């Protein structure tokens, strides 16, 4: 990009510069700040004390092993559930498959802590099912709190990733391959293990990495349902807001440890899949077969059961949002009381959520498509950096990202802490990757001569981009933007670090209400969130004429 002889400073040089400023200011500097802090003591001197403290106290070390154990277990379980599910729905005809897919997408996109909250309402100490079983049948079910509860929530929340990834890959396995395998004497399960599975393995691995990173980063679930089963994000949050005063240095060290683990997992997956990438030519796409008899019943039961279990929390929250409450207690009967309370007391958090989300998504769409264009069409030093930066947020847990933004921008020269801007910045940086990825993907399918044609007709780089390139990319932009949008309105972990009374969002309010026992308002707000999400999704399906979302 740096001007060679005869190259002007044009629109794309400006965009390159802009990308450097955006990522430099809001990603590189904060991360750098964190790394510096991790090796500092309160007096500003260099030290490794923070790390010694972490690794020498069982309390902290246990949070790390807890994190790794529960996240690994969840990842393995998710594969065990999600891969067969994907195989069944893409090989056999399942009645209501379309609806199942939508339900799976919805449960995937809703924030995990809502799942935790709902399971507590059902199976917790005073949960509906717990009390029902105890009072009417005298059955005592094991506690939902701790490792088991976290695992339950993670698995039911995250299997859709593996499901979607694997399903996508299976769709691309040429049916002739299966037929060829059968002709060679591979039947049934042997065929699956020997032919299909190896082909979709890299995809499963990619999905598993996403699952690992998501679970690893999640703060809300272990916080709500963990009850003492502390994980790293919980520790970081506690250290930051501890009563003995904030300890930015130690929190930074823990955050650094966490990011290193996440980055290692991410890189390991990249490395493995780069060594065994297979490209498939799809001439003969597979068609789902009709099963008969018992296998047919079993296949249906399996699919329905999983989908039911994963949508149950959502449904339960919607139901109880209409249940009457009195103070913090449930009361008899149903009505709109919770919604009335919510709209009178928490209207500002609803407005905040939509305000921030709309601003953030607009910025994301514009910057995301511009940056996607840079990475695909302008091969230069900046675009190569950009390629990396854009994916960076995948490995930075929200809690950490909130933390480092706060540490960087709570003092001059740029004070943003406490403003709406800092929350929007966090949304933009964290949720842009979806939009950039899908925009880049569609751009690779669009011939560059479209842009050249526009240039030849007298349009400069910028007007070409907005008149031609961006409209042509629309479908691809939209398919990423929908993910960005939904994950923005559901964002909790970084907002929790960044909000103040005035900038509180819906997820934060829900979280606070749950923490103080205000289950009615929490349920009503959660329902509003869920409905927004469903409406957005349906609108997206209608607009793009698609039936699926691309992860």
């Amino acid at each position, binding site marked *: 990009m740096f001007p*060679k002889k005869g190259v002007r400073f044009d629109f794309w040089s400006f965009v390159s510069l802009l990308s450097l400023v955006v990522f430099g200011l809001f990603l590189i500097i904060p991360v750098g700040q964190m790394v510096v802090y991790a090796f500092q003591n309160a007096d500003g001197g260099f030290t490794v004390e923070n790390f010694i403290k972490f690794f020498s106290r069982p309390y902290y070390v246990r949070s790390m092993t807890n994190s790794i154990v529960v996240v690994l277990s969840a990842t393995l379980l998710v594969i065990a559930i999600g891969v067969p599910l994907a195989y069944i729905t893409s090989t056999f005809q399942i009645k209501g498959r379309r609806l199942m897919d939508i339900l799976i997408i919805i449960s995937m996109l809703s924030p995990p802590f809502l799942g935790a909250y709902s399971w507590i309402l059902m199976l917790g100490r005073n949960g509906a099912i717990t009390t029902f079983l105890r009072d009417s049948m005298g059955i005592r079910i094991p506690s939902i709190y701790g490792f088991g509860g976290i695992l339950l929530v993670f698995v039911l929340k995250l299997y859709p990733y593996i499901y979607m990834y694997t399903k996508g890959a299976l769709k691309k396995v040429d049916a002739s391959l299966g037929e060829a395998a059968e002709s060679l004497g591979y039947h049934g399960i042997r065929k699956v293990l020997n032919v299909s599975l190896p082909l979709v393995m890299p995809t499963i691995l990619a999905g598993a990495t996403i699952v690992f990173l998501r679970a690893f980063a999640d703060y809300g679930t272990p916080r709500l349902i963990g009850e003492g089963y502390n994980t790293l994000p919980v520790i970081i949050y506690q250290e930051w807001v501890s009563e003995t005063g904030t300890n930015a240095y130690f929190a930074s060290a823990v955050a650094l440890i966490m990011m290193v683990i996440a980055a290692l997992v991410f890189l390991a997956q990249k490395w493995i899949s780069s060594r065994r990438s297979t490209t498939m030519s799809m001439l003969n796409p597979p068609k789902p077969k009709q099963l008969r008899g018992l296998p047919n019943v079993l296949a249906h039961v399996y699919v329905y059961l999983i989908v039911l279990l994963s949508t149950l929390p959502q449904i339960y929250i919607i139901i109880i949002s209409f249940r009457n409450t009195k103070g913090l207690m449930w009361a008899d009967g149903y009505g709109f009381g919770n919604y009335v309370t919510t709209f009178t007391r928490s209207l500002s958090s609803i407005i905040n959520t939509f305000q921030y989300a709309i601003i953030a998504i607009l910025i994301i769409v514009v910057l995301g498509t511009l940056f996607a264009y840079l990475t695909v069409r302008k091969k230069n030093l900046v675009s190569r950096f950009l390629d990396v930066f854009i994916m960076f947020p995948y490995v930075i847990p929200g809690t950490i990202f909130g933390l480092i933004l706060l540490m960087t921008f709570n003092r001059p020269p740029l004070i943003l802490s406490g403003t709406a801007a800092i929350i929007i910045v966090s949304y933009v940086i964290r949720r842009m990757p979806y939009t950039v990825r899908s925009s880049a993907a569609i751009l690779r399918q669009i*011939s560059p001569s479209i842009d050249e044609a526009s*240039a030849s007709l007298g349009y*400069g780089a910028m007007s*070409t981009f907005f008149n031609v390139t961006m409209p042509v990319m629309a479908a691809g932009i939209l398919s990423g933007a929908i993910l960005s949008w939904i994950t923005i309105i559901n964002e909790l972990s970084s907002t929790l670090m960044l909000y103040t009374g005035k900038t509180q969002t819906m997820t934060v309010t829900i979280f606070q209400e749950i923490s103080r026992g205000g289950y009615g308002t929490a349920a009503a707000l959660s329902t509003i969130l869920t409905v927004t999400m469903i409406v957005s999704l349906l609108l997206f399906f209608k607009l793009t004429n698609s039936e699926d979302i691309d992860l």
Partner: protein
Amino acid sequence: MAVSINIQNVKKQYDDNVVIRDLSAHIQSGELFTLLGPSGCGKTTLLRMIAGFNSIEAGTISFDDRVINNIPVYQRNFGMVFQNYAIFPNMTVYRNIEYGLKNKKLSKQEIAQRVEAIMETVQIAPYKDRYPEKLSGGQQQRVALARAIVVQPQVLLMDEPLSNLDAKLRLEMREAIRQIQKDVGITTVYVTHDQEEALAISDRIAVMNRGDIQQIDEPEHIYQRPYNTFVADFIGHSNHFAGEVRGVEGSLTHIVLENGHPIAMPGLMPLKQGDRVQVFVRPEEFTFASKEQGMEGKVLVKLFLGRYINYRIDFGGPQAAEVTVDATTVDRIHDAGDSVYLTVNTRRANVFHPDTGVTLVEGVVSNVP
């Protein structure tokens, strides 16, 4: 309106790979100038240098007297028709054509007039409200052409505009392009690797090989009087005979071919007895003759094509020769195995230097500046 294009000593390299070393050409105002050459010879590269999509490492390109090296693409005032048409998929036919005009300071009325007029010219008016995905290849081609010329550019650039069409449409569009280009009178640079297309459409052709122009000339000269063996082989088919000069007699040079057959070539450059030459004879430059006059050959294959008959004939040289005769003018059709006698049309055949490959025919020049 139309301009001439002056290309002077331009150089193009991608990283370390020099694609065009030192190329010059002068394209006259209003002519249809074709860049013809094998795949990878640098035609597209040169065209994109004129357009401004490629940087120019050395030398200059000017429209008339105006050097355009550093003028950005969008200010160069040219129209371009792309191999894949590059129609904007988000706009209707009408909007596509209108797009370039909207950028100019024209009244709405004038824009509408010009769009309607050009749509008539390229015969696309009935489809004006369709989106490109609902157009056939030929229709898209017409839209691309209309969009490029409606802005009345100084120069029209086309990169293999017909290569995505089927054979019949190709012929049709070829004539349409030629017609419109003449009507509008716009200087056009046309890239193709299809020699027949080049011969049919061009005012002048530049034959390129490995980043160099081999010859620039009108189609019939390029075909009949190729400057070197590359051009002779690339355009049409030539049968090769090694030969040796036996003597010169007035304007006739006596050459004995490798199979012992003597020919007397008119109009060659001065040669001495014993000079070795390459004689190139096109399939249609043979005539059946009597035993006394002709050189003997044996028919290997006969292909009857209706108007023409193609023979493969073994003259005893290293390669069998291709011979084409007009079916309407022959008395007799020969079959495989027949012995035949043919003479070479010496007014048409070409003679080249065996080492340099350059023509030995008097007055034939490459026209490369």
